């Protein structure tokens, strides 16, 4: 999101907050409508023709599909759901028709596709939705099928080679030159977050934890415009509670939201964007000449990624607050944590919480059922596999795998070390000065472990990371 989109989001937040005092239903419909438009508006231009229209449309189609397979049969006929469906389809249609009215594209980065193409898309989506959604006996496997579909799309988007092949396929179908195809052709804004919200809902439905949600509530939750581009990943039941509450935008709320937004803007556009100039990247990995400067460049990256991401989160939380939604916190001073477990409890918290709920805990429960596996192996497997998946969520590349393993192994070693210290040196914490020293030392070690992990995350190639490590340690 750029400054103009953030500014518009703030304005829309203020307007919705001010215009819908105590009018819950109107607020939900307005939030859904703005979020649907934001899905199109925030999507950057793509080299593939009209994909900046098709990908947002697919986000909305997947949202409706997921709602259909998690709702009682015939739910779409109920008043609010029908209105919600009409808002989503109606606005998508208006966005497409805008090509015939507006001289230049406004709601999409490039001119939307022709209306007949859009009609074909609607028809195909309609048939798929009918097939998946309106046949109750198929429910049990349809939920699994949608989860698999979402995971397959994520894998394609996150794997450069698969993305490239998909781009080549689309170009071939569209009779366009394939030489200029790139794995970045399918930059689908916010899909990682949308997919995780949808999978969360589908899994909760499977386990019987999902409350009933109307389509307007569900749609707003999945594509909520402040959290569309960079999260956080809220839980549907918590989000809906806020949505169903009566809300009046008071002066105090506006001030608190404003403080949070300004803090976020400062973090992102002043601190992070400044640090970005000198932060580690592929070019600097080979260009920096001395060990000292390489450390500075790595530190700059560590703080840049924190201020960038937490800045965006602050902005999202602030804007959401204007419309009465209290999004979950994503960061809690992570670089001041004395160990890696606490770091991961305070870094991208909504993502780690998601993985804890839907992978780590079920995986550990499954392993406990296996006989003859030592405890330490289970701890290692659980932590390494979870961190590996978190790495893969960022991208299916060797460097993200290494980053995930770095943290997985780090968490395991920290777990063993803590156990070792606790059983042998339990009286260490009795001396206050020693305790402070240990605390400071632990924070520094944890920060440096995380900062060194960013060497994998920031770079595209393991050989570049190796070069940086050699420079960092004077090898």
């Amino acid at each position, binding site marked *: 999101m750029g400054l103009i989109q953030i500014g518009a989001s703030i304005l829309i937040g203020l307007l919705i907050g001010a215009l819908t005092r105590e009018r819950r239903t109107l607020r939900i419909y307005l939030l859904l409508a703005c979020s649907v438009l934001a899905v199109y508006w925030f999507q950057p231009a793509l080299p593939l023709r009209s994909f900046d229209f098709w990908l947002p449309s697919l986000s909305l189609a997947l949202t409706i599909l997921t709602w259909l397979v998690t709702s009682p049969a015939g739910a779409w006929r109920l008043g609010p759901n029908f209105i919600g469906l009409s808002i989503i389809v109606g606005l998508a249609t208006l966005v497409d028709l805008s090509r015939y009215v507006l001289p230049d594209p406004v709601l999409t980065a490039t001119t939307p596709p022709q209306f007949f193409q859009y009609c074909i898309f609607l028809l195909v989506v309609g048939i798929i939705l009918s097939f998946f959604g309106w046949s109750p006996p198929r429910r049990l496997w349809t939920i699994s099928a949608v989860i698999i579909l979402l995971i397959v799309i994520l894998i394609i988007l996150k794997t450069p080679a698969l993305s490239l092949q998909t781009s080549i396929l689309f170009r071939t179908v569209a009779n366009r030159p394939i030489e200029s195809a790139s794995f970045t052709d399918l930059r689908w804004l916010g899909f990682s977050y949308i997919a995780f919200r949808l999978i969360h809902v589908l899994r909760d439905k499977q386990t019987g934890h999902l409350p009933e949600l109307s389509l307007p509530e569900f749609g707003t939750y999945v594509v909520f415009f402040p959290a569309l581009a960079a999260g956080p990943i809220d839980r549907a039941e918590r989000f809906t509670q806020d949505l169903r509450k009566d809300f009046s935008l008071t*002066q*105090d709320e*506006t*001030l*608190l939201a404003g403080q949070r937004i300004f803090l976020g803007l400062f973090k992102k556009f002043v601190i992070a964007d*400044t640090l970005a*100039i*000198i932060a580690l990247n592929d*070019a*600097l990995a080979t*260009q*920096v*000449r*001395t060990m000292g*400067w*390489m450390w*500075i*460049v790595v530190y700059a990256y560590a703080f840049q990624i924190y201020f960038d991401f937490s800045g965006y989160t602050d902005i999202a939380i602030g804007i959401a607050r204007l419309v009465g939604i209290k999004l979950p916190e994503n960061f809690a001073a992570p670089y001041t944590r004395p160990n890696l477990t606490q770091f991961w409890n305070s870094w991208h918290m909504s993502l780690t919480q998601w993985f804890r709920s839907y992978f780590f805990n079920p995986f550990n429960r499954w392993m406990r059922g296996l006989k003859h596996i030592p405890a330490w192996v289970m701890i290692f497997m659980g932590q390494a596999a979870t961190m590996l998946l978190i790495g893969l969520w960022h991208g299916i590349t060797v460097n993200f795998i290494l980053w995930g393993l770095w943290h997985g192994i780090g968490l395991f070693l920290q777990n063993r070390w803590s156990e070792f210290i606790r059983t042998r040196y339990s009286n260490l914490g009795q001396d206050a000065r020693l305790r402070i020293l240990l605390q400071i030392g632990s924070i520094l070690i944890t920060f440096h472990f995380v900062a060194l992990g960013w060497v994998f995350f920031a770079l595209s190639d393991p050989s570049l990371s190796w070069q940086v490590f050699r420079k960092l340690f004077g090898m």
Partner: protein
Amino acid sequence: MESRTRLYPLLLKTALIFVLFNLTFIFLNDLPLGKISLYNSLFPGRERFPFGETRASYNLSLFDLDAMFASHVLAGTEKAPDEYRVLLIGDSSVWGTLLTPEQTLAGQLNASASNACGKTIRAYNLGYPTIVLTKDLMMLDQAREYQPDLVIWLTTLEAFPNDKQLTSPVVANNAERVEDLITNYQIPLNASEPALVKPSAWEQTLVSQRRALADLLRLQIYGALWASTGIDQVYPQDYERAQTDLEASDDFHGLASLENALAFEVLDAGMSVVPHMILVNEPMLISSGRNSDIRYNFFYPRWAYDEYRQQLAEHATNRNWRYLDLWDLVPADEFTNSAIHLTPAGEGLLANKILKAIQAECK
């Protein structure tokens, strides 16, 4: 949670502070903010002026001469008793497009570790990639304070036409300096030329000046990249070589003759700035490709360049200047992406000639 701050007074105070800050900034505009620099203290000074259009160059172009000089190694180098200080003024060929600092003319002169007048020669690259005499004069005027023993001014015909003296961006955006130069050196240039940017009060507010201020800050941040990488421009693996097949046109700035079309008064002013100067007509590509009977290269038709060389030689002789006409010193294959940009070997040839001229200055 109850907040003690009230929204509307807060918004009013914010608006008032914003307006006051902007109005105050109009009066602060004359402060030489550009002289405040992290270069030569936290970061090493640059070997050449900041100039660049892409982020990958770790560099940027700005119009603030104070900031440009403050970032230069010259501003942070105390002149040693045994230093023979040589300042090199000129365009992109002196600045060193596609050349690392060590490969430039200044770099090669320094690498030779030669002596002149019993002292060690230390050359400073004050080239800037804009071909116009007025810009060179601005640089010369500012460079005086750095106690040069000798200034070498490399120039070419493209810097001379009267019609372009005030229109290049770095000149046009330094209107006050240019007006001072016109007054101090009595140059017959029009100070009310519309190209000169004279900001209104609104254009001097903080809001209007945000880009210039951001550039100043970015220049400081790029200091970290300069210090850590030593890179100040993009060095592409491959580039388009200077044109040798030329258009069949003998046009030069729409002129029929160079009579009264060249800014020799600006040259006179420049040559009077410091006592010891050498004027150099810089090397250029002499093409042997298509239409080379009409043009020497992309820049110059033969008639214009021949006339210029004759006029410049006569002008220099009449004023008893030290003048080197090195126009054909460098063979065609030692040029890179322009008819005036040299390869490291081409710079080496030039450096040898210049070095001899510097040493001859002491005899």
